[in-house]
């Protein structure tokens, strides 16, 4: 096969080859720069306090720590899942001050003083939340890895609809949105399920909302 202008690195080619090649091309300067820093210094940390599932936690964290990793690696609340770590899959969805967010896209230090609900805060195997029970009854999961995010999202979706927040598929922005099949599907579309349990998840959410979705 023919490469255009074989192996000559164009600007576009440099971008295409990825970060490591870029680094290689400028290796000497960046190494020198790195070596001029006091490398062994520990990274900056910050103290924070937030409430997770009704329990106050005082933490001192590397400021680069995401809320997701604070929950999973520091508080050992591993029910919140890391699927992509950059806001594309929804597996890390938690509820912060009543709103669902991707916990991988936000740093823990940004949540000082806030109230966080994770899957563990919704219910336990012995005392499940209605949404968790509905997911089991409707087989709204298979491998289970996206499931905590789907459930946190689902709980928040019903609250959003109740609060009158419209979505992309809400036809009448002046009327209160209702729980319909398309409203659920639209609002849940940030939570990927690769096993493909979608219709079962929608049925579970509809069940909790008291409608046939």
């Amino acid at each position, binding site marked *: 096969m023919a490469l*255009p202008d074989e192996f000559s690195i164009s600007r576009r080619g440099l971008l295409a080859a990825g970060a490591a090649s870029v680094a290689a091309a400028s290796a000497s300067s960046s190494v020198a720069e790195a070596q001029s820093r006091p490398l062994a210094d520990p990274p900056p940390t910050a103290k924070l306090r937030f409430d997770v599932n009704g329990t106050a936690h005082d933490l001192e964290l590397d400021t680069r*720590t995401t809320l997701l990793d604070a929950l999973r690696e520091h508080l*050992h609340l*591993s029910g919140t899942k890391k*699927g992509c770590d950059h806001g594309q899959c929804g597996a890390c969805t938690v509820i912060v001050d009543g709103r669902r967010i991707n916990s991988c896209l936000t740093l823990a230090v940004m949540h000082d003083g806030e109230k966080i609900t994770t899957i563990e805060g*919704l219910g336990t195997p012995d005392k499940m939340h209605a949404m968790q029970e509905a997911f089991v009854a409707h*087989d709204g*999961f298979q491998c289970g890895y996206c499931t905590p995010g789907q459930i946190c999202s689902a709980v928040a979706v019903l609250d959003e609809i109740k609060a009158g927040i419209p979505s992309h598929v809400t036809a009448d922005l002046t009327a209160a949105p209702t729980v319909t099949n398309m409203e659920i599907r639209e609002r849940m579309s940030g939570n990927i399920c*690769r096993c493909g349990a*979608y219709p079962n998840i929608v049925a579970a959410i509809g069940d909790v909302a008291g409608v046939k979705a």
Partner: protein
Amino acid sequence: MKFDTPATTNPIDRLKVVGKPTDRVEGPLKTTGTAPYAYEHRDFAATQAYGHVVGSAIAKGKIASMDLDAAHAAPGVLAIVTAANAGKLGKGDFNTAKLLGGPEIQHYHQAIALVIAETFEQARSAAALVRVEYTREKGAFDLAVALDTAVKPPAMFGTEPDTSVGDFAAAFAAAPVQLDQRYTTPDHAHAMMEPHASIANWDGDELTLWTSNQMIAWSVGDVAKTLGIGKDKVRLVSPYIGGGFGGKLFVRADAILAALGAKAARRPVKVALARPFMFNNTPHRPATVQRVRLGATKEGKITAISHESWSGDLPGGGPETAVAQTRLLYAGADRMTMMRLAVLDLPEGNAMRAPGEAPGLMALEVAMDEMAEKLGLDPVQFRILNDTQVDPEAPSRPFTQRQLNKCLETGAEKFGWAKRGKPGATRDGKWLVGMGVAAAFRNNLNANSAARVRLSGSGVVTVETDMTDIGTGSYTIIGQTAAEMMGVPLDRIVVKLGDSSFPVSAGSGGQWGANSSTAGVYAACVKLREAAAQKLGLDPIDAVFADGKVKAGRRSFALGDAAKDGELVAEDMIEFGKLAEKEQQSTFGAHFVEVGVDSMTGEIRIRRMLAVCAAGRILNPKAARSQVIGGMTMGAGAALMEELAVDKRFGFFVNHDLAGYEVPVHADIPYQEVIFLDEVDPNTSPMKAKGVGELGICGVAAAVANAVYNATGARVRSYPITLDKFIDKLPEIA
């Protein structure tokens, strides 16, 4: 227990627990976030260090130099593993490319280093300080260009690359109606939700890996072989797996690098592959170019059928077996199939859900639709007309069960197929509406599978097997099997899976897991029943296990009484004989899809989906339905959006994350209906079941493609069917 004659009546046939749509037994754990996945095991939590993988930035060539100084000096760094310091490493039997590259590089994002640090943030940051100079070499990255260099590959797992019956060329030339078309399918990613992840801990020379793996025994072997240690020194633990779809059949870099990292750092090390790293580091379903030729009489009888497929892989890899189903699906006296394999220096190609059939049916079942139209026949009728009840390449081999026609007929009736209009003729407001059909086909495979069962004095039965549950429902159907055999309710059964210290099972792959692993549990339970009866002084032949009791004649005991003096333990393996050689065991289905295509923009929306399946005894209709709708969803993705975009200059998949590699989301998938036909197949195992987990994806994409054609009158033969490929062919807007 040998299984070499068809099953007769046995305790499973009571169907008090088996066959019921039971909720998943692990559901309360998964829905509350308390099921531990690989990266979440708490053993040695206080001392676990974090590893971050560095991948190659070139596709082919050599590492000229690596400068690790800056990374070593970074805060928290404990050790760095590279091929230069890892010692001699082997290559696993199931890996094509090495899991730790260097100095030779075989593909883009091949792992070349693991940086281990006290925290995740420190490891990730230090990994970015690793400086690598490469010597880039020319590689082959474009399948279309490499087609001319493709060669006949060796037979793999008993699958010959070429088959021929009669004289295809002559029969095709003589056929009054002919179809000759080419189709292409792109590279696909498994994109399971849980990234590959492992935690490694060494205790002396003994390694424990908490990992996410579908095939425990295969992977123990490959870990041992790669690290050059005995299999008895390796323990794999994989109780929960966040999706696999074939992507976790084999040991990957996370496991090997965690093991090497834990040795280097003298601490337990945890490693998860970063999502943008997975698409080029781990295997994918290879792209195909396929040619299908059909010759038929004017009445619609196929007289000549051929299917050829070209795909590429790294040296030592194998072909995508896209012609496999064409050897068995339709009648036709003169026939041939052929596979050719080119060398490509892209990341490793390997099995993804229904390897072979999934892309193969994407071509064949569109060809069938095109031929039906040429013949002026309904596509359902055309398929029914060309049914065969025997292996068309070896007519002395009948199918054990083959209800394809009934699947098609039942589906057509339920779906309202009779309302399907001519191409481009059905409107619903701005939407062009169309229906499509395709056959689903996948062989039923069996694999030897062992289990251990323990009976406690309280009457609780514990099952131990290294079988895995990748979302398929293994925990539940294995529990149901043990409950049925021992005559107790499901809540008296404890199921333990995914640990290499348990007896070796079939594992999860090739849709062989459900039937094989439950048959292994059946075999172990037969032994436990004998032991229990004997202990109670009852004749094992007469003893009836039901309602928590063991009864024979007028004597009756609580099941737990048999273990009053101590736990009873039994272990056995189901060993499959040659039944599958004499008669063909396959699963069948029919997919029906309705789409709407925006008459102005070409946007495609799936409106309805129905699958009718015939796949032996359905052990749990709820879990089986979920398997099928999951396949339908992945098939919808293959039809409409999934494509790894190849950078043909530098040799890598460009869209290597979940925003660039699009998979179906909630908004894409409507209600999906599944119907299972009654079927019990005594040839498959004492369970009389077959696989269903891959049948669900087979044919779906073609049914969507055929529906898009019916809606628009525009035929697209290059997947995925995106609107740019047909918008200029849409009907004029009135």
